[in-house]
């Protein structure tokens, strides 16, 4: 009885918070048939927004994957002083509101900011352009790989690496042949979470992008754009595409992951 009660609470909660709204989005998108949905999605500015989101994701994910693995190794293996501080700082983007992140970048790269005067002197447009959006996205999606890899590395211990050293493997060989294969599922899971975060990022990007239609508008900003212009079908349509991409990535990972990763 008690278990049944707990289960229904969990299911009710999921339906109310997650599945209900998602179903509503699907329903509303197709409310007026496929045609208005299709024309909203194939609008050149919408296509550009999707492409920009994918471009930013394609840069931010590899950067944060490499950084996350290096960071996790530094935190767990403690090969340098100050590893504890790094461990704390990695979580900062989770604690900061993305809008605050955007504002920080705005102040740094603005015309009178620390870096802004240097970049504009060298003719590089950071704010209201792709670079600032990439930086903002990297910042907010930074912790995921490290957060997944750190506990796995801890559990793994360093005996296998030491064994590899005594067998003649250099640090680099040990990383590629022993460490990375052992943490690969944590890395992949981190990559999936990072990708989802990058695709969905809104707040920080909204602040630094300038929100220029067809130029610095990402898919999530495009949703807002449609919504404010009463094109609800278009807004729901983009939302669906973003949701489907995320579900596909999650499903692909679940299918790829072996039942027992011994």
């Amino acid at each position: 009885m008690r278990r049944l009660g707990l289960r229904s609470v969990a299911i009710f909660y999921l339906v109310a918070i997650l599945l209900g709204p998602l179903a509503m989005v699907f329903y509303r998108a197709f409310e007026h048939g496929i045609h208005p949905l299709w024309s909203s999605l194939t609008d050149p500015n919408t296509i550009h927004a999707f492409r920009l989101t994918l471009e930013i994701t394609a840069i931010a994910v590899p950067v944060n994957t490499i950084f996350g693995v290096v960071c996790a190794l530094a935190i767990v293996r403690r090969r340098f002083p100050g590893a504890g501080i790094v461990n704390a700082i990695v979580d900062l983007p989770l604690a900061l509101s993305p809008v605050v992140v955007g504002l920080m970048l705005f102040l740094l790269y603005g015309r009178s900011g620390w870096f802004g005067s240097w970049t504009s002197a060298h003719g590089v447009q950071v704010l209201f352009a792709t670079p600032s959006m990439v930086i903002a996205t990297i910042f907010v999606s930074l912790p995921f790989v490290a957060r997944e890899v750190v506990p796995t590395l801890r559990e793994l211990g360093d005996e296998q690496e030491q064994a590899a050293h005594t067998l003649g493997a250099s640090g680099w060989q040990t990383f590629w042949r022993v460490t990375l294969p052992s943490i690969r599922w944590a890395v992949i899971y981190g990559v999936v979470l990072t990708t989802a975060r990058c695709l969905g990022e809104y707040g920080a990007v909204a602040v630094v992008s300038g929100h220029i239609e067809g130029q610095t508008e990402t898919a999530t900003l495009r949703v807002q754009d449609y919504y404010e212009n009463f094109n609800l079908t278009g807004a729901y349509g983009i939302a669906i595409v973003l949701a489907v991409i995320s579900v596909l990535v999650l499903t692909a990972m679940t299918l790829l992951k072996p039942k027992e990763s011994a």
Partner: protein
Amino acid sequence: MSIEVHNVSKRFGSFQALDDVSLDVDSGSLTALLGPSGSGKSTLLRIIAGLEHPDTGEVRLAGEDATVLAPQKRGVGFVFQHYAAFKHMTVRDNVAFGLKIRKQPKAEVRARVDELLELVQLQGFGHRYPAQLSGGQRQRMALARALAPRPKVLLLDEPFGALDARVRAELRVWLRRLHSETHTTTVFVTHDQEEAMEVADRVVVMNAGRVEQAAAPHDLYDAPANDFVMTFVGDAVRFDGQLVRPHELELTYDADETTREAQLDRIVHLGFETRCELTLDDGSPITVQMTREQAAELELAPGQIVLVRRPRVRVGGELPDVVG
């Protein structure tokens, strides 16, 4: 390859793991580092392997200074207590690891791996993963992996510590035989005195970061350097302020100046041996060991009063040359 350790000290925070330790291991020997946990034996082994670096002191391998040499360049094979198997590789890939790192030709690698799998009796297990092996099989795989690149020194850190008693006994015999075939200089760490005495030519007894005594097994037992070695290697009891072996004490009914009264609490029959647990007249417990025949002759019964006689000749913890 000979190993020399000169005046090595190592500290972990406030814990002095090794305190001015010196040790010589002859080329081709089979040496045990024996001691209780925290005695520094594993740290010493890891320093020889290059997995730890000493704070002070020197390590020489084959006469060459190796104190700061990377573990990759020492030509040592290392076996860990918990196997350190590469879990994502098959048994065959585990064993081949050191050879592939050295970029040996594929045919040679295959031949060497086959040879080693046969040596550790794991033919037919080559395509399994470590998770599909028993503890004993995993440790044999780890041994094969360590031996594959033909190391000049084989170092084993509590190699049988995680295995059950029967597998331990098997692997001990097997290690002994392996050594007599290959004559690779071998050093293994253990906290089990029986294991050390049974397998090694030479036993180094360690305690609290220091070497207490390094000697052949029978010398450790017959001529322990101090009370620690006496109590750690073999049984010892205190009688009249002296440490003695339980079998050196004698039970008798004839009183003289070397005997003391005791009450017999319990008689334990251990096959060939009989162990008597007694309480001396001052209330301290003591154990006396004798053969079954001796016990039968005395017609002992629990609860009775008997006399304990200390060994005829033993001075200051040291046994004289001739033991009565």
